[in-house]
């Protein structure tokens, strides 16, 4: 349970930025 909480919290902290990077790359590729 503890690991699950740490994993979830870590994702909540880090993944939005990662997803944003990929989303921006996708949009830029579409734009091009």
């Amino acid at each position, binding site marked *: 349970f503890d690991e699950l909480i740490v994993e979830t919290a870590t*994702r*909540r902290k880090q*993944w*939005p*930025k990662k997803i*944003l990077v990929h*989303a921006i790359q996708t949009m830029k590729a579409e734009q091009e």
Partner: protein
Amino acid sequence: SRAQVFATVVDTFLEKLVAAGSYQRFVNSYRCFYKLQPQLTRSIYDQFISQLQASIKEEIQEVKNEGNLEGLFSSLDKIVEEAKDREEPAWRPSGIPEDDVRSAMVPYLLKHRSHLRRVLREKEEQNRKVAESVLMGRDRIAELERLIQARQQAWQAINKEQRELIMTFQE
């Protein structure tokens, strides 16, 4: 600050623990040994307490280093300080990643929107100018065609004259 509270709370814990495990209590528990060796009992007790305190303090320091607690405490103090004017509860993860990640996208989308709006405005302005020169070009071509038509008619009129003349000669 959090670091001070943390240190104070741990020190208090230690003090109270030592107070609970008083020498009197120790002697009461080890009565048989105390009767034989009262001095030794005292020094064993003193060493026990100082070693226990030292170990616990060392452990706390280790936990602080491992978790970088000092740094985290001070940055959390700052974050809390910045939010001191807020009353209402702040946002918390909803538990639905799709919902939460959307807001992370919004600043970029807004930036992208203003970029597209600017590009579109520039492009429209540019095209307006090009459209103007196209219209001017069309007018120019119409005018040239009119000119040519006028010259053509003039020549056709001459042509008519010419035919009349030839008729005359033929007669």
